[in-house]
């Protein structure tokens, strides 16, 4: 498969989903698209024509996870040196109860330790198996299981209230 075709196929099949995944992993919607574009450039550069397109999604996902980590680390450093800003204003949809409920869970998710958040997002948003999640995170399946378990314990009361 030609490089240009590989890119088009991988873009149309996975771009949007990966942007949404990156939004969770970075906690930054604005940065998500840039992270995913970086991932495509890296993957395409590393594998040239990408002969086995079936592996493209896994490569891209793993790269998005790694780049999202870098982005979060970078932001932590920047935030340390940035002046304190005003709290975010409520969004236009904030009046909707469902939105508030939803945000409570997602806010709690954002507060989780990085690996727990990654495990939860990959398992329950990207719908990956434990093995696939482990591969994307670069850890063992057992580690995924323990991170997922701890994260669910932290989120469970919010989810049960929401249900």
């Amino acid at each position, binding site marked *: 498969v030609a490089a240009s*075709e590989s*890119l088009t196929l991988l873009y149309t099949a996975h*771009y949007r989903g990966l942007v949404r995944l990156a939004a969770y992993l970075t906690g930054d919607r604005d940065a998500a698209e840039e992270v995913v574009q970086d991932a495509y450039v890296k993957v*395409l*550069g590393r594998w040239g024509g990408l002969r086995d397109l079936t592996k493209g999604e896994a490569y891209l996902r793993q790269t998005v996870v790694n780049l999202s980590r870098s982005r979060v680390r970078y932001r932590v450093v920047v935030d340390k040196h940035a002046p304190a800003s005003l709290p975010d204003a409520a969004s236009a949809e904030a009046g909707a109860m469902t939105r508030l409920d939803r945000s409570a869970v997602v806010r709690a998710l954002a507060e989780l330790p990085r690996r727990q958040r990654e495990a939860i997002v990959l398992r329950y948003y990207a719908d990956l198996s434990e093995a696939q999640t482990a591969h994307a995170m670069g850890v063992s399946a057992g580690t995924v299981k323990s991170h997922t378990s701890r994260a*669910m314990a932290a*989120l469970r009361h919010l*989810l*049960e209230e929401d249900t």
Partner: protein
Amino acid sequence: VSTPEDRLRQLLQVEVDDLVPAGDGLRRIEQRVAARRSLRARLVPAVAIAGVLAVAGAAAITVSLTDQGDLKQKHLPPSHPRPEPTGCTTGLCEQPTPSPSPVVAVTTSAPGTPVWPFTTDAQAADWTAHPGSRGWAGDPLQLTQHLLDDYLKLPGTTARRLDLSDQAAAVEVSAAGRSVSVVRLVRIGRDPSGPWSVVGATSVDLTVTQPNPGDEVTSPLHAAGTVTGVDQSVHLRLMTDVLLGEAYAPAGNVLPWTQSVTWTASDWSVAALIGSTYNGKGDLSAVTITAVRRGSGDAVALPPPGTTFVAMEDGHVVLADALSGATLRQISYPPSNAVDSAPDEGGEDGLVWARTIRGCLSQILRAGLAHGTAGVTVDQKPVRMLLPSLSRGGRSLGWVEQDCAGGDQTVVVRGPDAQLATVVTVPAGVVDLDVRDDGSALVQLSDRIVVLPSGAHDLAAATVLVPEPSCRVVAPAWDGQVAVAWQVCPASWQTVRFTAAGTISSRQPAVDVVPGILRQAIVDGQTLVELTDHRIARLSRPRLVEVPGSARLSSPDW
């Protein structure tokens, strides 16, 4: 939602549902890849000084990244001039007469197979000499707008050019404020300033993974892909200047979709497979264009392994294997006071049949063969409902009704998409009914076969299929857009195809048929017939091949 895990899945999906990428992502990535490629190219000489092996490695990477080499590419496939539009939009469509097939060249400024509005150098040269009213073909943006408005008939879409290359163009298409596609164009012809032509279009929301651009295809064309939306229907059209075939594929939620598109015309060489989807508000959400070439192979004589058909067995609907005849699955379970009859398969995800309760209380039931559950399509009424027919794409449903006391029968068709209703009273004795996606109904009456246009309310509006002198026609069925029937002449049986006017456009060689044919079903070039002695056979020209053990089955359809 039953568990916290399920609730979390749902919340996570909903939370980012409104996060839609800007739409220029592909262009940005391409630009950055090109920039890296340029950087690598500049680095190559320096690396060469450092060592021969390093040069080889860097060059290999550069080649793999650029991939396209010389942008000026020349293709010399056998090609055919495209036929004039037939103007056939409703009712029966005539099988076009094949055009001469001279070998012609296609020269393009970048890789791709041009599909619209030009496919050959000769057409491009003609435009250069006489642009006439098609001056818009000299500008990718204007051309794309004509593509949307005139060719694809997608009103309300707007186009915006994404790049400024003189060799290849990308134009973003938007509908209702959202990006729905990126159309790619190249210059065509030997003149470097010649016209542009479309080579493809991709979309974030709809992916076509099969066929690949430039693939050779035969009928039926097997298409596959994914969509990102929930519960969508992918509309597939195979088009030259005219519609060659179309189908709808149920899809959703990134689950892969598959569908077959059948065509019968043989006078084309390059066509566009158009895919489109709409969101829940009815706004266009994605458009794709995949260029395909007509392969030389004819329809396969044998159905592929795993092909199935539906039929009646011991009073219930079953799914049977087309090669072995074995019953694979029981589909209907009528209660003791009910009788099921006449199953009809309408595409991949729809099967209907009639159920009559206590002699004269009928309903039409529907089941999804792949993953749906059974349900009522037409509520039970105190009439006899017979011969339900679901169109291939599932857009139209028809049946025959008759009062319990007897008398005339009524042909009823709902469709397409429940927009029109056909209600026509006909003399009792309807033998067969087949409904096309646009709602046109092919009806075999006791003495003739007629086509009822969608929305008809009078038999006078019907077109009669006219056999040759001393012959009669039976067992009608839609083969894509074309009506096909068996013509019975003294001592011979043959399939014939009909024009929109009801006259015969082509006939196939005679087939040995003993004792006779009751009805037929045609899908993807495969014909299944029920003989008058109720055996079932496949048509494998020039003969019929009985499905093993078929005497226990009746009313087959696929």
